[in-house]
């Protein structure tokens, strides 16, 4: 039993044991020689140290030779054997010991980089409690079928991707999205495998299990990213294929000319450009691993290196700088009743998939009216200009609990009539027919197009709402403006700080939006796109060459805007939602997709995917990329200096085998450790 555990220990720690033994023998051999002058005994111990430390190296060298690769282990073996042959026992033992120690430490540190990702893998639980045939059963998580309902107790990890069908809880999504604060989840909300249910029990209808979960997609994506070679790395790899044979040829040539065996053997020892080859990949892998843990997916080293050169970040407005969840802030009737205006608009917009249409239809549905409770109009909509209050609050004011329930029921049940005909005018609005009337809902451009006259009172109201950053939608019946609906899309709380951070880092920021000039200006001001320089403005604009915002852009205009910035010599990052902004994201040097956790395509295609709708990750991603770029340069610089100094030292006989090995291994360790700093960035 004991022998067995020793054997197991030895197998697991063979490298450490071998290195330590060889080191002790090396020290012993040197000590004996130094203290007693018994040269033969000293030599014997040193040779033993070489054999113990060198056996594994020689074995791998044998495989390298049979596989026709010229690896460092072959070179080290040749050098050690050569040193023994010419009687330099101390040098032989030192080379072998230092190499073992170096590669042991390198293996250990690289393992740390490699396992950064494994932590993610271990997040997902192995089993799931699933409701089958009316009973709860414990099954392996990967065997849960889509559509099955999984029960997750408080404190448990969620085993599958799915939608909450029952229960309410706070879920810690940090493993998937990097958000540190728990997210409230209730009916209909999406949850992800590997996240932690903190408070209440949840029932989740499975949408994906096993390898078909967001977490697994993230892991695959990160691994691919880490394996993809960055341009710097492939350049160096090509260089390395010539470097090693060149140094070997130099070693042979040097021996032929000088007959100096030590010089030639030392050249062999430093013949592997270790630090140069290892440095850049370690930096990139560490950075990608770090980003993944913060909910930022980077597509690969190439994109990381490019992101490090970004000098302009263009933001989409809706859904990126704002929450993308617009609500009706106000309805104003002109010659018509407010409610009628809203209902007309809702009818026209019912079939539209535009996000503003959703806000209008939702507001109309939730609004209590005479139509459904068949009598007096409910309080709350009367005389109030803010119609965000839903049926429930309106009824509470009447102090009738029954009415609350009724109003809630009505809110859900209230139906909007279908339009008889319906047509979308892209980027402008809709034209519909209902009840024999033509209804137009849209922006000023649409009204101008259709020659609808806009009264001064209407224009005044529109101007006032737009200056607050709201979007005003005109409602037109049979050619007359009957009302205006003001829709508000709240700015994300983090937006001003993010814009300020980027500017502080010397990066230009720009907001691109399809919204009208005035609304755009208001939002841009609120988000801190300061200065508000406008294109075609004064001389100062020309000098800087950048607008702080561009309004009234169609989707293809955003792409053109990005191209224009690139033509001006900028390295442009575009931030958007990954779906509507796909073309401009693809055009930008670096496309950054927000809220990618729910959209597989964004995870797969964006250069940078932010798993959460977390704007604050953008300055982080940009500065991490810049830090990585520096880190790669540092590593390459360190390696080049080391190799140059070593070569010079060897050729002038200042550096011999042991010193050469020491410096070589130290430089490799230095670049690995330097790269690993990015894991803690």
């Amino acid at each position, binding site marked *: 039993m004991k022998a067995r555990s020793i054997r197991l220990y030895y197998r697991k720690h063979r490298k450490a044991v071998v290195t330590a033994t060889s080191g002790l023998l090396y020290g012993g051999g040197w000590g004996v020689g130094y203290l007693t002058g018994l040269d033969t005994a000293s030599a014997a111990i040193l040779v033993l140290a070489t054999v113990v430390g060198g056996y594994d190296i020689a074995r791998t060298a044998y495989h390298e030779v049979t596989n026709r690769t010229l690896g460092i282990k072959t070179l080290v073996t040749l050098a050690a054997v050569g040193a023994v042959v010419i009687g330099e026992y101390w040098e032989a033992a030192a080379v072998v010991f230092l190499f073992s120690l170096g590669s042991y430490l390198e293996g250990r540190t690289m393992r740390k980089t490699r396992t950064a990702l494994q932590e993610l893998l271990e997040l997902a639980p192995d089993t799931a409690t699933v409701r089958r045939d009316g009973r709860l059963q414990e099954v392996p998580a990967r065997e849960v079928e889509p559509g099955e309902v999984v029960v997750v107790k408080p404190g448990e990890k969620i085993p599958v991707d799915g939608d909450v069908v029952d229960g309410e809880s706070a879920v810690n999504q940090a493993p998937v999205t990097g958000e540190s604060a728990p997210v409230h989840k209730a009916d209909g909300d999406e949850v992800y495998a590997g996240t932690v249910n903190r408070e209440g029990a949840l029932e989740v209808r499975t949408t994906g299990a096993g390898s078909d979960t967001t977490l697994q997609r993230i892991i695959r994506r990160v691994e691919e990213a880490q*394996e993809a070679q960055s341009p710097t790395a492939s350049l160096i790899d090509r260089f390395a294929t010539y470097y090693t044979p060149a140094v070997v040829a130099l070693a042979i040539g040097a021996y032929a000319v000088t007959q100096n065996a030590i010089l030639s053997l030392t050249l062999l020892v430093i013949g592997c450009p270790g630090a140069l080859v290892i440095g850049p990949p370690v930096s990139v892998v560490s950075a990608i691993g770090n980003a993944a843990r913060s909910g930022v997916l980077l597509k690969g080293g190439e994109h990381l290196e490019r992101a490090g050169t970004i000098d302009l970040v263009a933001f989409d407005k809706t859904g990126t700088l704002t929450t993308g969840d617009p609500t009706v802030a106000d309805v104003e009737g002109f010659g018509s009743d407010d409610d009628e205006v809203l209902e007309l608009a809702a009818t026209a917009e019912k079939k539209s998939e535009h996000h503003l249409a959703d806000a209008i239809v939702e507001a109309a549905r939730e609004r209590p009216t005479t139509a459904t409770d068949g009598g007096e109009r409910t309080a709350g909509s009367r005389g109030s200009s803010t119609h965000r209050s839903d049926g429930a609050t309106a009824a509470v004011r009447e102090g009738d609990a029954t009415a609350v329930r009724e109003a809630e029921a009505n809110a859900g049940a209230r139906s909007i009539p279908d339009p008889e005909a319906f047509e979308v005018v892209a980027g402008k609005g809709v034209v519909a027919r209902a009840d024999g009337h033509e209804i137009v809902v849209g922006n000023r451009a649409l009204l101008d197009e259709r020659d609808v006259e806009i009264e001064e009172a209407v224009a005044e109201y529109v101007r006032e709402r737009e200056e607050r950053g709201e979007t005003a939608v005109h409602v037109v019946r049979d050619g007359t403006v009957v009302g205006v609906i003001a829709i508000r899309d709240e700015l994300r709380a983090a937006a001003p700080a993010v814009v300020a951070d980027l500017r502080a880092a010397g990066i230009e920021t720009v907001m691109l939006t399809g919204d009208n000039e005035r609304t755009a200006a208001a939002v841009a001001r609120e988000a801190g796109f300061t200065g508000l320089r406008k294109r075609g403005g004064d001389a100062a604009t020309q000098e800087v060459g950048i607008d702080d915002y561009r309004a009234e852009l169609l989707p293809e205009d955003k792409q053109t805007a990005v191209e224009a910035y690139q033509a001006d010599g900028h390295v442009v990052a575009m931030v958007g939602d990954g779906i509507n902004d796909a073309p401009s994201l693809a055009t930008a040097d670096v496309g950054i997709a927000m809220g990618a956790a729910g959209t597989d395509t964004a995870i797969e295609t964006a250069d940078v995917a932010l798993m959460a709708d977390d704007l604050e990750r953008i300055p982080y991603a940009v500065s991490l990329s810049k830090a990585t770029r520096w880190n790669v340069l540092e590593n390459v610089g360190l390696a080049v200096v080391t190799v140059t100094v070593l070569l010079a030292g060897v050729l002038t006989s200042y550096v011999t085998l042991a010193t050469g090995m020491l410096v070589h291994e130290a430089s490799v360790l230095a670049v690995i450790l330097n790269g690993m700093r990015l894991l803690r960035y």
Partner: protein
Amino acid sequence: MSQTTQFRVMDFDCPTCASTVERALSNVEGVEDVEIHYTTGRVEIHYDDGVADPDTFAQTIENQGYTPQPA
């Protein structure tokens, strides 16, 4: 039939070490393609299961002086 299997090798200590293993695996009869990534330690082997015995892959990696783990 063409099959794929994966290993993790956490103790690659230099990029050339990884390419030695890559060559050794490629020389195993029935192996069609080998992908080795030094940075992540991932080893992916595509092989013809009528010819190659996947049980020998781990041994081949061990013979080169590295410890394969199932992925």
